[in-house]
């Protein structure tokens, strides 16, 4: 369709403006982490690395970082296994209830986090399991399964079954076909799915609120618990910057690994 020159420039300008708005808040916090003043008032004043030094020596953020990493690693490992199995089952087989299964897999992220959170909490309570790292990992893995599933299923759908049939015709057994043909072709999708699951878990706070044991503070929880204390704001700025960097890196890698926007709308 014909779009006039003026309209083109208008749309380009609008898109650029939206990008500025998207990135400004994140960059602003990074800037505040090296701000001389303790408050977040505009404009920022001067530069200092004092807060980064202080954060490196503070035990609160460090403990929270390890807890977040621990949770995200375990949860994404579980999600990788379960999500991959599910994607093979759902893309390679047609069976009664197939749609229902994919519906159940989407539910943990389609329903509001608070519902997933208090449902799991009351589920644990009913069975008599106390909140701990275990309960948190189970909760995170539950909503990460669909991320891995989406990435791997997208790859499997594009993968021609004739490759595997050729392998079988040449005498390879099921395991050899998987090891020599299927796995190498989907390795990058597996990695992308796992990275996205890691990032999602690392950043999660709502479900975490209801499924982490008392005193088990992940990084997002630490930020929330400290952002209303004016004295701690400089540290919050540093920790917030670290969180952004640590969740952007795996996502960036995942983007490069997966094909285009396949993983983009995975959440």
């Amino acid at each position, binding site marked *: *369709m*014909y*779009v006039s020159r003026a309209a*083109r420039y208008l*749309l*380009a300008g609008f*898109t650029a403006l*939206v*990008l500025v*708005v*998207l990135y400004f*808040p994140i960059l*602003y*916090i990074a800037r505040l982490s090296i701000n001389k003043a303790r408050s*977040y*008032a*505009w404009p920022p004043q001067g530069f200092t690395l004092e807060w980064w030094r202080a954060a490196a020596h503070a035990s609160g953020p460090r403990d929270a970082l390890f807890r977040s990493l621990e949770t995200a690693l375990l949860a994404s490992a579980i999600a990788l296994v379960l999500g991959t199995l599910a994607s093979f*089952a759902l893309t390679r*087989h047609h069976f009664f209830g197939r749609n229902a299964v*994919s*519906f159940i*897999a989407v*539910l*943990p992220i389609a*329903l*509001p986090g*608070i*519902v*997933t959170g*208090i*449902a799991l*909490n*009351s589920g*644990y309570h009913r069975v008599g399991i106390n909140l701990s790292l275990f309960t948190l990992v*189970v909760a995170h893995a*539950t909503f990460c*399964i669909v991320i891995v599933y989406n990435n791997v299923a997208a790859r499997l759908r594009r993968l021609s079954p004739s490759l595997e049939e050729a392998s079988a015709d040449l*005498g*390879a*057994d*099921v*395991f050899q076909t998987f090891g*020599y043909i299927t796995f190498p072709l989907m390795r990058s999708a597996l990695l992308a799915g796992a990275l*996205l699951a890691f990032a*999602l878990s690392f950043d*999660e*706070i*709502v479900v975490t609120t209801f499924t982490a044991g008392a005193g088990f503070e992940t990084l*997002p929880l630490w*930020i929330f618990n400290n*952002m209303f204390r004016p004295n701690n704001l400089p540290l919050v700025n540093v920790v*917030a910057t670290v969180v952004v960097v640590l*969740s*952007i890196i795996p*996502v*960036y890698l995942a983007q490069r690994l997966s094909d*285009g926007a396949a993983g*983009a*709308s995975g*959440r």
Partner: protein
Amino acid sequence: MATTTIDPVNERGGFRRRISRVLYQRPRLRLALLLGGPLTWLVVAYLGSLVALLVTSLYHYQDDPTGLVQRLVTSPSATNYQRVLNTDVYRTVAFRTIGAALSVTVIDLLIALPVAFYMAKLARPWVRRALVVAVTMPLWAGYLVKGYAWRAMLDPAGGVLHEVFGHSPGFGVSGTVVTLSYLWLPYMVIPIYAGLERLPNSLLEASTDLGAKAGRTFVRIVLPQLRPSIVAGSIFTFALTLGDFYMAQIVGGTTQFIGNVVYREFSANLPFAAAYATLPILIMVVYLAGARSSGALEEL
């Protein structure tokens, strides 16, 4: 890897071979092995919990005859649901939340349409690829960090908005809607972009050839084709706003959403919290069922 040789002598033997043959010959068994783990996990850990929550919502607390303590009554009753329906405050909070979810969805849609259109139909290929990455990345960069950033920006005392533009919505419902629209915008842009990219240019050219101006082509051709994409995007913006309670705490001042009430009642009166939390579930199940029939779930 290309040099794997199959030994015809051992073709029939070998434990692995035998298992492989069984697996190959029985697709049902293969399916059961693949699906068993994930399905058990989802059904036991997740669906089980959801059912437990629904059952809990049928319990209620009742004053002990002494009037000093409250007693949990586990015989099912609709007491909590009646309380939700008959209490002004809970109705107001529910409508406020649904209103915020709709506002966020509409705001994001209005911003996402031109951006996605520019990305999919006007930008050069390399700009397009860069834009997809640029729009997607902030999604994963610290939900809470972004809330905190908006707290710093919205603050009427010294925040960027007030200092630079002379006006800030401040901490309240509008501040929360602004922040949530910001947070969920990429969820709307990406599916619409994907939908536009699939839309053949020839369709748009045909419309132009038949004499339609850009605006008419957009309304009559582009929008109807985009419906599943828009529904897919709105599932995210709507559902995420419906269940959010952190942003109301961070930038909402005293604003209460459904999530805030659920969070507050959660430790004091779990059955009531459970009943109130079914409200977003009901709304979303209806929404998802509608989305599924329009084929939008394939977009997720």
